[in-house]
């Protein structure tokens, strides 16, 4: 694996992150925004693993496990908030619920 291959994988990772960011910004449904957030998180995961493979170092996969933990906790809290918002305000549009009332 040469340096140009690493650059290729980094471009792929940046593309995944950009697609996820676009999804978070463009979608209105909270469930779809959470899916896009997962896509965005997988970009840095690919970057860590590719860098770890380039240097033949286990630290890349260690960071990937930490990213995985973060994604699991974030999705659990996000989905609980989604269900709570649907129950209290009856909508899943993040524009409608953007104003917090205490």
């Amino acid at each position, binding site marked *: *694996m040469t340096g140009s*291959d690493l650059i*290729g*994988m980094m471009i*792929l990772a940046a*593309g*995944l992150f950009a*697609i*996820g960011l*676009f*999804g978070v910004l*463009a*979608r209105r*449904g909270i*469930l*779809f925004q*959470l*899916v*896009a957030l*997962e*896509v965005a998180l*997988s970009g840095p*995961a*690919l970057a860590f*693993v*590719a860098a*770890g*493979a*380039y240097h*033949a*170092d*286990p*630290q*890349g*996969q*260690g960071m*990937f*496990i*930490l990213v*995985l*933990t*973060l*994604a*699991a*906790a*974030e*999705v*659990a*809290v996000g*989905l*609980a*908030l*989604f*269900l*709570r918002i*649907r129950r209290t305000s009856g909508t899943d549009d993040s524009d409608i619920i953007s104003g917090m009332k205490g």
Partner: protein
Amino acid sequence: MSLLLAIYAGAFALVSAALAVTRPNAVHALLYLVVMLLALAVAFFALGAAFAAVLLILIYAGAIVVLFVFVVMTLPISPESITRERASLRGAWPLPLLLSVLILAPFLFGEFGIAGNSAAAPVSAQQVGRLLFGPWALAIELASLLLLAGLIGVRHIGRSDRTPRSRP
């Protein structure tokens, strides 16, 4: 040659990620998310990170997506959505079929010996475990604290407040 496989799987993940964030139907978006995660796992395998690939399939595609599907199942399903599903099943099968065939292609490469040896030096699960429970023990403690905070947060957010608790 195996690096070609990594780039192929990465490009595949890119396409299915674009599909996952643009589908109007929640279940379709989740299915494309699973396809993206599987393609990413193929890329991890080709990069010599087998442990990360297995964790990606087990935790991401196995646990996190099931959580999403569970939430989607709690949403009410209207009769018109079922008729829309029937109509889309007639017209919208070529794209999923193409994706399934394309994700099958790397396995055929491996079967016919086209893929060859791994391009990157493989990092074994034992090395990762030595790292995590040796010098990175503090990071593991912080991750466990994060999961505990998530657990308590979900318990607090998901608490039903329709029936006030009777205080003794």
